[in-house]
């Protein structure tokens, strides 16, 4: 796998020789985009931070991998932390930051001692004065959002905040801040050093399959080719792109090329290429209830539709699974889901209904069969 290739600080050396301008140009030229789901061009982000005048700048590595069914960042943290750390060092060099944070999700605390040891070794070996700190999260899903990460590191409540100002101009402690995902930053030294670097993406595959795991695949590969790798146990019914990405019926879309824009057209989101494979033995209503429970628990409480709405959605879905819901309840559910998606404050609320809305689009009959 390309992502496991080690660069042994040679990429950093090369970056320093090239200078920050050229490094950013190189990252832009190779077309690296954010791997956490947003797909923002990494070079452009760095350029914005570099251009903003400030006496201090920060780099944050987002290792708050909270999306259900996603485990690719963990795979990197366990198997190639050296290259990740080098990537962070290159990012700091490119934007002239003196301090970097690795925001590690609290569920990954077990990785912390080894990661800390690796940081110490790499910094020592590079004779770097960079201040790199592991910041442990407190277990909130929404803190994966960049403004919420900033709030959390600042010691505030881990809630998303209003944008603009964007972190690139006013981020951590009101200073320009680069926030990149683990996978994005690990790609940096590799694309700097290896001429044959290819734009490959990690896919987390799980669900009703015999071979769940992390797969490295080119962007734009057909859905059926991905699913085949994981060896489904039965006939596949639907693919969930994590919780927030929504779901698609497999048979109808198996020929689709897995590109962000194709999936967006179906009102879903590819996100960080998470795929949970669901086969014919599973009920979509049960899955929807389960995901609704997750969002009800993870809503931060800031805005009305997400705080109150996710709770009501869960209630209605539970009623439906128990066969207690009426037609009117089902209509209220649909209206509510639409309002939550349209009017929530942050990405969590807005995407929290993707799973339900797409399930209602493609598997409505399963819901209707359970109504009173």
């Amino acid at each position: 796998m390309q992502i496991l290739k080690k660069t042994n600080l040679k990429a950093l050396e090369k970056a320093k020789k090239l200078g920050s301008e050229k490094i950013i140009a190189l990252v832009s030229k190779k077309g690296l985009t954010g791997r956490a789901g947003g797909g923002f061009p990494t070079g452009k982000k760095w350029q914005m931070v570099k251009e903003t005048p400030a006496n201090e700048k920060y780099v944050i590595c987002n290792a708050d991998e909270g999306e259900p069914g996603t485990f690719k960042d963990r795979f990197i943290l366990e198997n190639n932390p050296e290259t990740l750390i080098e990537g962070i060092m290159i990012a700091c060099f490119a934007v002239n930051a003196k301090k970097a944070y690795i925001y590690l999700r609290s569920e990954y605390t077990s990785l912390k001692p080894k990661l800390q040891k690796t940081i110490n070794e790499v910094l020592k070996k590079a004779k770097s004065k960079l201040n790199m700190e592991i910041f442990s999260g407190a277990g909130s899903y929404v803190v994966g959002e960049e403004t919420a990460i900033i709030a959390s590191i600042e010691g505030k409540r881990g809630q998303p905040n209003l944008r603009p100002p964007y972190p690139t101009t006013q981020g951590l402690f009101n200073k320009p801040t680069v926030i990149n995902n683990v996978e994005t930053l690990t790609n940096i030294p590799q694309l700097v050093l290896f001429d044959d670097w290819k734009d490959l993406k990690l896919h987390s595959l799980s669900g009703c399959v015999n071979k769940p795991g992390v797969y490295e695949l080119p962007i734009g590969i057909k859905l059926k080719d991905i699913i085949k790798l994981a060896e489904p146990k039965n006939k596949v019914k639907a693919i969930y792109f994590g919780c927030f990405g929504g779901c698609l019926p497999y048979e109808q879309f198996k020929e689709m090329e897995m590109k962000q824009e194709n999936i967006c057209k179906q009102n879903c989101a590819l996100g960080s290429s998470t795929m949970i494979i669901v086969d014919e033995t599973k009920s979509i209503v049960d899955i929807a209830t389960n995901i609704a429970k997750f969002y009800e628990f993870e809503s931060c409480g800031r805005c009305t539709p997400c705080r109150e709405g996710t709770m009501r959605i869960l209630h209605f879905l539970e009623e439906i699974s128990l066969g207690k819901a009426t037609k009117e309840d089902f209509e209220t559910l649909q209206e509510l889901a639409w309002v939550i998606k349209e009017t929530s404050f942050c990405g969590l609320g807005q995407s929290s209904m993707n799973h339900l809305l797409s399930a209602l689009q493609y598997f409505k009959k399963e819901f209707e069969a359970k109504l009173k």
Partner: protein
Amino acid sequence: MKINIDGKDFEVDPKKRLLQILKEKGFEIPSLCYQEGISIQSRCRLCIVEIEGKLKASCEILPKEGMKIITNSDKVQTARRVNAELLFAEQSKFCSTEHKEHDLCKIISELGVRDRKFDTKKKYKVDLGAAVVRDDNKCVNCGRCVATCAEIQATYAIDFAFRGNKEHVTPYFEHDLNDVACTKCGQCIAACPVGAISEREHLQEVLQVLKDKKKHVVVQTAPSIRASLGEEFGMPPGSLVTGKMVAALRKCGFDKVFDTDLGADMTIMEESAELLKRIEKGGPFPMITTCCPAWILFMEFFYHDLLKNMSSCKSPHEMLGMLTKTYYAKKAKINPKNIIMVSIMPCTAKKFESTRPELKSGVDYVLTTREAAKLIEHFKIDFKKIADEEFDPTLGVSTGAGAIFGASGGVMEAALRNAYETATGKRVSKLEFDQIRGMDGIKHGSIIIKGKEIKFAVANGLWNARKLLEKAKDYHFIEVMACPGGCIGGGGQPLPVNKDILQKRMNAIYQQDAKMKLRVPLENPVVQQIYKELLGNPLSKKSEELLHTKYTKRSKF
């Protein structure tokens, strides 16, 4: 910049948020969590509009050239209605707001909701504080109280705890307000759009004592409420209703109606004497005023090293309470034990102040302006039509210096007028200290008394006070009032308040001062008589005993 709203073009200020623009242009947009002067909460999601096919909360959007906004499409209506239903269902008790502008019940009925669509299971304990009562069962998590406490008052007494639908407002570790560093200023009450926070009511107790024939019930009214009480009865902001207020209170059954302005005059006599004494002795400077009980609490919690700089004077209503139970009781030959003193104040912190043991307070009950209005309504008095009456003269004659206590800068101005005249024997050449009047957060100036330059500064709002205290050493005399604009913007005043209303109340107070013949406390005949018959001189042993107090260091946790 030009934008298009509902098909019409408008020229707009690009720095203002869309909600503000829409309101200024006369569009009716429901909103609960937006408040001028605090950061954008974007919580309630009622101010939804449609911009290029997408629904957006107008409070967080900045206008862009050529932006097309639809304020009333079906989509917008549905989104607003559903969010209002969700908010409505969040309350397990109905709201009881006096905020006419932001009534959730009104918003809900306008959106066509008639009943609770969802049930609520939430149940919280009511936090019954000495001055401020918080009932989370009415709360809709709009965040205005939290932001007001932090961003305007720099007190951080309350914040959100827990997450999702368990999120609610609370002091740290879910303590009661009484047990945390809360200044009791009541600005959270003014911020709350659903009445989840309110003053600790004492209306029933007052109604009881009014019925008790054995008690001699006396009322005093603060300088600022005569400029605001009228609003409760539908009069325009800035109406001065002194005469009507006195008449109405007398009709409620109070035996005497006294004027806290006289207490203010007494405070000034003592405070200016204290200032002159410190000038003579060379310190400690700056001397800090202590008329505001929320400010005193703030200092006791957060600035222990400056407590020695605080003036030892009690606040005006406490002084008048004391004088009522000594000077007046003796004159009227009434046993002080049978006198009940009720203070009508613009303030919730005064409720707490009257329970301080070290004051041996002469005040038995404190009512806010809003409670006073309820009291008058209880007796079915037609406030607008009632004929003017005068205060009872025994403790009801006051000067313009006492009158301006209700506005930020007023205490300072009054003290300086009196100190100058006491020290030099002459009236200060210009009585109006314009540099410390007005709505600015921090104001300052200087005056020469007996060849020495006295530098003074004034702050209103506790964040401004914090900023001023950083430069405290530059000044000789500092006045702070905890609420924006001073007592005219107090936590017990009629709602809603905004800058415009505050300015009108302030103007009314200064007009009253300008009309008065007596404008320096030294010239007040009743003040002179009190000193002659009871106290002797300012700062005498007797006044130290009755009119001065001490402060305690309080822990933040």
